[in-house]
Structure formats: C-alpha cells, structure tokens
C-alpha cells in the first residue's frame, strides 16, 4: 500500500533534497574523527615500535604460563602463612593510607572550595598544590618514602596518604562546592557568621557524601596497596613480584587469587557501608 513506484519516489526525492542528498558535511566529520582516532593509534604503534609479530608468540607463551598456574598452590604452609601476613599488611596499608589521606585532605579541601574560602589566591594555590600531589602516582610516592623511612609497609602507608591527599582533596572540594547553598543562607539569615554557615549549613550535607567517597576509594586503594610492594613498600606486591621473577607460577596464581578475594571482600563491605550511610547506591 505504501510501496512507491519510481515516479513517486523521484517526486519525493525532489521535494526533500536535503534528506536524499547524502550530507557530506556530517559524513566527512564522522570520517575525519574516526580517521584521526585510528591515525593516532597507528602512529602510536609505529612510534612505540611495537613488534606485532611478537604478539602471537607472546600469547602462546602466556597460554603456557596459564597452564602452569593451575591449580593455584602456595607450595608450603610456611609460604601460605607468609602470603597471608603480607595480605594483612596490604589491607593495613590500604586502611591507614585511606584514613590518613582523608583526614589530611579534609582541611585542604575546605581551603580549595570556593564556597568556603572566598579568597581567590588561597583557592588557586590550594587547587594547584592538590593537582601537583595528585599528578604523582602512588608508586612514585612509594619510591620516595622508601628512601625516607626505609623498606617496609610504613613507607607504603605514607605513600597512600600522599596520593590520597591529592585525590580526596579534589573530590571533597568538588563535593563541597556542589552542596546546596540554601541551608547556609538560612543560617546566615538567622544571624550566623560565615563559619557558622559552613559548620551547620554545609558540613552536615557533605559529610555523608565525603564518607561514601572515602569508602569507595578504600577498594581502589586496596588494589594500589597490592602493588606498591613492587618498589619495596611492603605488602603482598613484594611476594608477587618475587614469585613472578622466579617463575613460580602456581604461587603467582595463589597470590592473585588472594588479591581477588581481598579486593572483592573490601568492595562488598564498602558498598554495604556506603548503602547504610547514604541509603542508596552511591556514585563517587
């Protein structure tokens, strides 16, 4: 019924040329965008001198490693205990690092929030210093702290404190800036000063959000804490790097399994707590 003969079709095409003339502008924009993305990708592969021919050999070798990894096995009870102890260290590092970072970041984030400190210079300086701290990876901080307090988990804790200071400082200040300003106005209208406004109008709103962000990062920090051992800052990473270096694949897979279990457990716990705090699934 709606089938058109060629005459009708031509008539429709003539009436709506913009639909039937392929829109070269739009299409060329898409093609250019995709071309640029692919171009940079190819340039990257060439520039990085990535040996694509090694890909298949490497994957074959990986398959071999994978076969050797099964089943996961610590080899001896003694090593299993050492691993568990290292895991405990990792969890401690993550916990204290997150806590310390959050405690230090809180005052800094107040300085960096526009609605708390109106002074533009302080605001700018606070922001840039937080960005600088954040620009240095946890692993680099670990490297530095190993130089200061020596090998061991303590260096790892300090490293996480530093990198979380930057991350939380930024997140917190953004959350504070996003807070509803009506309660603050209410308190100031009742005769409170600026500090009263912050204390009673702002903080009660944002504290649950900040807590939920801290809990959310606890999980990702557990993952960071598993690897700082690679540079000697304690935790399970040291064991892992060691076992990989000596090609003890079953022990490697045992350690990876431990990490998976620990991170999942922390993830589960932190999302339960977050749910309890703010009553719904939080997006950090």
């Amino acid at each position: 019924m709606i089938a058109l003969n060629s005459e009708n079709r031509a008539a429709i095409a003539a009436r709506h040329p913009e639909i039937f003339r392929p829109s070269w502008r739009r299409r060329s924009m898409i093609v250019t965008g995709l071309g640029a993305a692919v171009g940079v990708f190819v340039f990257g592969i060439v520039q990085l001198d990535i040996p694509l021919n090694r890909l298949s050999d490497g994957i074959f070798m990986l398959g071999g490693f994978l076969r050797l990894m099964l089943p996961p096995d610590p080899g001896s009870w003694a090593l299993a205990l050492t691993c568990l102890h290292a895991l405990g260290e990792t969890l401690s590092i993550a916990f204290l690092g997150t806590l310390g970072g959050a405690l230090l970041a809180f005052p800094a984030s107040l300085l960096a929030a526009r609605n708390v400190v109106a002074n533009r210079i302080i605001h700018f300086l606070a922001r840039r210093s937080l960005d600088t701290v954040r620009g240095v990876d946890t692993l680099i901080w670990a490297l530095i702290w190993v130089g200061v307090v020596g090998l061991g988990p303590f260096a790892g804790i300090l490293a996480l404190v530093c990198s979380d200071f930057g991350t939380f400082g930024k997140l917190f200040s953004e959350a504070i800036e996003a807070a509803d300003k009506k309660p603050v106005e209410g308190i100031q209208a009742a005769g409170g000063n600026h500090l009263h406004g912050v204390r009673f109008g702002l903080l009660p709103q944002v504290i649950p959000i900040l807590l939920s962000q801290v809990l959310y990062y606890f999980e990702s920090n557990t993952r960071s804490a598993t690897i700082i051992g690679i540079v000697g800052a304690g935790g399970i990473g040291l064991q892992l790097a060691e076992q990989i270096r000596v090609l003890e694949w079953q022990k490697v897979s045992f350690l990876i399994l431990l990490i998976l279990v620990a991170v999942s457990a922390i993830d589960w716990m932190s999302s339960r707590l977050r749910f309890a705090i703010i009553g719904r699934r939080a997006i950090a």
Partner: protein
Amino acid sequence: MRAAIPELPQARLRELTDHYASAVAEKRRQLWLGSALLVGAVLAAGWMGDVDPWKFSENFWRFPAYFANMVPKFSFTSAWADLSEWFWGLPRWTRLLGDTLLIAYVGTLSGAIGGFVLCFLASANLVRSRTIVFLTRRALEFCRTVPEIVFALIFVLAFGLGPLPGVLALAIHTMGALGKQFAEVVENIDSKPIEGVAASGGSWLQIVRFGAVPQVLSNFASYALLRFEYNVRGAAVMGFVGAGGIGQDLIEAVRKFYFTDVSAILLLIVATIMIIDFITERVRHHLIGLQGAGT
C-alpha cells in the same frame, strides 16, 4: 527584645528535654561504638603495618631533605645555564613522555573498544541468557581487579621488555574497568526505545545499535576520557617493571640518587598530567553539555 515564647513549667521542660536526650542517646551510642571500632581497627592496622611513630619522627627530616636534595643549584646570574643543566636530558625525556602518552592512548582505545563490545553482553536488560551475563561480568571484574602493573609484570616475561606489555596491560585493565562502568550505564537506560526497535523486527545487533547506543554514547565517551587520564598516570610507572615509557628513567634516577634528575622528570610528568587533565576535563564538560546530539 520581646519575648514571644512563653516560659515552660519546670516539669514539662524536664519531660521534653529527657525525651530529646533519650532520642539522641541511641544515635550517640552508635557513634561511640563506631569510633571504638575505628580506633581498634587503626591500632590493629598500625601494628600490622609496622607503623612506628618514633621511627617516623626520627626520620622525618629526611623527607624535606630529600626534596631539598632535588632542588638543583640555581642562581639568577646563570639562570639559563643552570636550567639547561637541570633539564639536560630534555630531548630524551620528552620523547619518553610522548611514548608514555601513546602507550596510554593505544591502551585506552583498545581497552575501550573491548569494553564497548563486552558491556552489552554483561547487561541483563539486553541479554536473556543469565549465563552469558554472569560469565561476562566475572571476566570483566577479573580484568578490573588485577592491577595493571601485575599484568605488566607477567606480560614483560611473555612479550619481552618494551612498550608492548605496557600497552596490553593497560588495555586489559581498561577493558575490565570500562566494561563494568559501561554495563552499569546500559542497565540504567530507558527500556522503551529498546522495545520499540524490537517490536519493529530489529535483530539483537540492531536493537543495540539503535535502541541502546544512542542513549549511552556521550556517557561512554566521558568515562573513556576519564580512564585515559587515569591511564596516563598508569603509563608513567609502567617503566618501573620494564614496560616502556618514562618510568624506566625515573626509577633509575631514584635508585642511583640522581636527585636533580628525579625532580626534573617528576616536574615533567606532573606538568604533562595537568595539561592532559585540563584538556580532557574541557572535552568532558563539552560532552555533557552536548548530551549526544544523535549518532
């Protein structure tokens, strides 16, 4: 001041304040319990993590000293010469930084493509088979949970030293992280367009292409950019395990106590990361403002 509030009889006042006190008592008890738990956990973790305040205070001077060591000798009379001595390795370091960015880019793009493909299989509102959803989810979670540097450690053995293991490690980790985030976005989309396309006779691919993708694309792009930011940081330390980029030079400088080199490289890394963050943040705000003007 005029008193518009009448004074309460003592008995009534006592009754009301008692009621208030008992109402907040429960809350306060919970707070105390929570604090006690927290302190317990801190002590346990402190013992486990070898925290030694004494050692810390004794050694803390080393921290500023470390940074003081990193400051190069610098005088305004010979500023240019000092600067060029400090950044003596600039050509090599910029090349390595470029490599780092490329590693992050190639890894993020490949990972994002993988995550894009897998996220639809991990979304219960698009796939009927519980088994497929479950398996895809677990696979994505595995890739996300294992830190990228652990993948890199293993890949270095399989693929040899160089950027290739770094790229692959970032790609796999990104695939897991983005795939999971993407799947969460897909599970929250409006189901009406999906039904509309299905009711017109669209196949699964067509339903995904026309019912789901237009709804999620801008969100996906924003998440991918965020991941790129994160991956630049990750790529900067890939060199620690021999997987390419600037990390190699950094760890060498740290190990050999070339303090001014460390500060020069760190400054370069931080500056690069700040620039990248600035650009991607701009683009993301633009994307959010755009909210996917069709596809």
